[in-house]
Each structure stands twice: as C-alpha cells, then as structure tokens.
C-alpha cells in the first residue's frame, strides 16, 4: 500500500515492478492511467494546472486505499497523483490494484478512481491558448460513479 503526490511523471511498468516484483501470489494486476486530453471540438486547452491541499491529499488517498483493502482481497495497491502544470498527453494519475484474481483487481481499481475523483482534494485549472484560465467544474457523473459503491 502506498500513495504519492508528485510533480514528476511515472512509469507504469517501473511502478508495478517496484510494487510487486518477485511476488508469486498475484494473478491479476489492473492499472489505470489518467492523461490530459488535448483540444477538441468542445474545448481549447493549452495547459492544465493541478492544485492540491498538501497533507490532506496524502491522508485522504491513504483513507481511500485503506477502504479498498477493507472491501477487496488486495495483495498490493498504489496511487500516484501528479500536481503542477501539465500538458496534453501527459499522465495525471496512476492507480494499481493487484490481487490473486481479476474481479477484485478490476473492482478495486475502479473504486479507487471513483473515490479519488470525488474525495481527494485536487483541483484542475485549464489555461486556454488566449491565456485565459478556467477552473474545471466537477462532473455530476463522477458523484454518480462514486455513489454506486455505497
């Protein structure tokens, strides 16, 4: 079990290896990587800046992770969230859930993301090509996704 908040990028294979390399009790590893999407027909974006509440982010991520371990038989897990200025195509978040069987790993990874999205104190600000900035609105769908685990 581990949580990290960092500006630096991460590598999925390297993090997986550090987390569970050499173990033979794991049959299923699910990873989720969230990335910054670039401009599309719905929005312009030059940069995405992630603000957070230092210390509370780690504390809340650890609570979310502990909740996942209480609900599913997980052998290992990892949550990494980046902060600072990011750009299109950059990684934002990594969740790894490892278990003996795949159902627990899939469900725990989805749960971790749903809870991260609705409980961990991070806020996204988009910078437009014009230099104008805009705080990203929370999505009602994310609350709905988190509610299904209650």
């Amino acid at each position, binding site marked *: 079990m581990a949580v990290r908040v960092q500006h630096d990028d991460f590598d999925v294979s390297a993090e997986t290896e550090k987390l569970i390399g050499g173990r033979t009790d794991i049959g299923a590893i699910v990873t989720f990587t969230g990335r910054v999407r670039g401009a599309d027909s719905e929005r312009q974006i030059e940069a995405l800046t*992630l603000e957070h509440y230092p210390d509370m982010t780690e504390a809340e991520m650890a609570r979310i992770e502990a909740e996942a371990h209480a609900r599913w038989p997980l052998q290992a897990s990892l949550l990494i969230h980046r902060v600072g200025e990011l750009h299109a195509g950059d990684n934002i978040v990594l969740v790894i859930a490892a278990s003996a069987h795949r159902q627990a790993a899939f469900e725990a990874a989805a749960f971790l993301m749903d809870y991260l999205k609705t409980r961990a*104190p991070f806020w*996204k*600000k988009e910078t437009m090509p014009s230099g104008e900035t805009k705080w990203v609105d929370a999505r009602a769908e*994310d609350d709905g996704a988190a509610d299904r685990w209650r």
Partner: protein
Amino acid sequence: MDKQTRNVRLLYFAWLREKVGLASEEVELPVGIATVADLVDWLEQRGPQYGEAFARREVVRTALDKVHVKPSTALGAAREIAFFPPVTGG
C-alpha cells in the same frame, strides 16, 4: 469551557482562494461559533470578498483538520479549517 475565544487557521483553495484573495489566515474565533455553517455565516460578515466566495454556499466543501465534514458538523477542537470547491482531480 466554550466561552473562551480561540485561534484557528483557515485555508482556501482553487476559486475560493481567488475570491477571498487569501490562501490562508489565522482568525480569532468568536464565542458562539459552534458549527461549520456558523463559521461561514460569520465569515460572510467580514467583507464582500467572503460574501462572493460563499455565495454558492451549497457547493463549498469543508475539511476540519484534513477530514471532510458537513456544514452541520461541530468545529470542536479543530485547528485547521479548509474551504474548497468540489474536487476535480483524477
């Protein structure tokens, strides 16, 4: 026991920080402020920037000593009270 005033640290994040114009401040909590909602009522009296920050009060989230709470939660002995918009990480 609750008759004494005490100091708490207030934190503001994202657009709440921008509207209040401060990332954090130490305030002396007056007697009679029992809950998060009481504190917000009192803050709104302190200036138009607070009024604007808390105008859509139903969307503002609060943490006491880094734990999510509701508006009806008692402040208790909390030393650090943070206000922020709904989170948008992940």
